[in-house]
């Protein structure tokens, strides 16, 4: 059976890619953000996952409103990046774990999740940056140390899937991974949030109190945020802060690893760009 080694939640922001590209991670502006990652990198160096299930939200690169999925599961041999509109250089391709992709697609359909299957899929910054943050050497040229299965969750267009449904998706994926006939070591990543709002007169909205409570809930009370509707979450954490749904899915998946979740490391920093950023690593 496959082994679940833990879960990581992290923010994603296009500007992070720009900072990596320019090599300014230690500048005073960026250090409080990038400084949160070495302890997580170290832990991953010991745990050596083979596969990442990446919960992320597309920002209008791979999906448009003509075919907007609620849940989409990648099943491609590799995932290319592309220009997202700002001319930032595309990330190197990431190899896919097709065996796990199809195992998940089959398990999810059996459990009445109605997923979109993607045998070809462009990965935007939300899918690629977590890999660069967790494995900074990744594809300098020596390849990536992991294969991935991207799971895209709609945060673009309402109605979004309900927080409880997203958590249940995560749980179903965790249980399917735990039952996967494989000797691979699997990590769950949730990419998004925390509180931020890009659009409207309330642009710049940040809710530190909620964020900190949400981070605590990830450790000890994982269903806590499912008490809110998505509309309430938008009010609390902003129109893009609702990306914390990715963390909910990631945390739901970790349930299958067993009881007794332990915090490996956390970091919280305001602001990068318009966002309250965080990284949190959990294991059992």
């Amino acid at each position, binding site marked *: 059976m496959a082994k679940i080694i833990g879960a990581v939640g992290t923010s994603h922001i296009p500007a992070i890619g720009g900072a990596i590209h320019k090599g300014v991670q230690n500048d005073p502006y960026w250090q409080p953000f990038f400084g949160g990652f070495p302890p997580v990198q170290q832990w991953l160096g010991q745990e050596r996952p083979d596969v990442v299930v990446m919960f992320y939200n597309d920002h209008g690169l791979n999906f448009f409103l003509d075919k907007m999925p609620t849940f989409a599961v990648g099943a491609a041999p590799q995932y290319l990046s592309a220009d997202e509109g700002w001319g930032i250089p595309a990330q190197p391709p990431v190899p896919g774990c097709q065996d796990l992709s199809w195992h998940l697609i089959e398990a999810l359909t059996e459990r009445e999740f109605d997923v979109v299957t993607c045998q070809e899929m462009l990965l935007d910054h939300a899918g690629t940056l977590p890999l660069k943050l967790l494995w900074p050497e990744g594809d300098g040229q020596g390849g990536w140390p992991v294969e991935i299965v991207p799971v895209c969750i709609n945060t673009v267009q309402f109605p979004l899937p309900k927080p409880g449904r997203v958590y249940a998706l995560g749980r179903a994926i965790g249980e399917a991974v735990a039952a996967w006939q494989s000797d691979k070591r699997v990590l769950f990543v949730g990419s998004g949030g925390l509180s931020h709002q890009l659009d409207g007169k309330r642009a710049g909205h*940040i809710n530190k109190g909620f964020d900190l409570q949400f981070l605590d809930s990830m450790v000890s009370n994982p269903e806590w945020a499912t008490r809110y509707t998505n509309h309430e979450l938008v009010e609390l954490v902003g129109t893009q802060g609702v990306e914390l749904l990715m963390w909910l899915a990631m945390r739901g998946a970790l349930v299958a690893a067993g009881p007794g979740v332990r915090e490996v490391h956390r970091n919280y920093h305001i602001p990068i760009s318009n966002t309250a950023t965080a990284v949190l690593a959990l294991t059992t």
Partner: protein
Amino acid sequence: MLPEIEGTTPFDSTMARRGYALNKMCFSFNHQANREAFRADPEAYMRQYGLTPQQADAIRSGQVLAMLEAGGNAYYLAKFAGIFGLDMQDIGAQQTGMTKTEFQAKLVAANFQ
């Protein structure tokens, strides 16, 4: 009806219906060649995507709040902003009526909430 959120318009069915042409145009800006075509002749490009008069006016004005009102979605509009080299704090400042420095200070102040 859901309660209103101050200064915030969730991109729901009303906005999705209203903004389709505008968002489709912005989605096309993922490609460099399309960004250049827009820059070369914005009016022709907007006609090609069938923008409504409200949408075309919003684009001409460069005002993000007007684009949102015309059904624009933040994720797609970000690609339009990219054409002008605006970053998210420029956009935030414009929408809140602040200078960029003021907007940045507001963000930092969230540390002391």
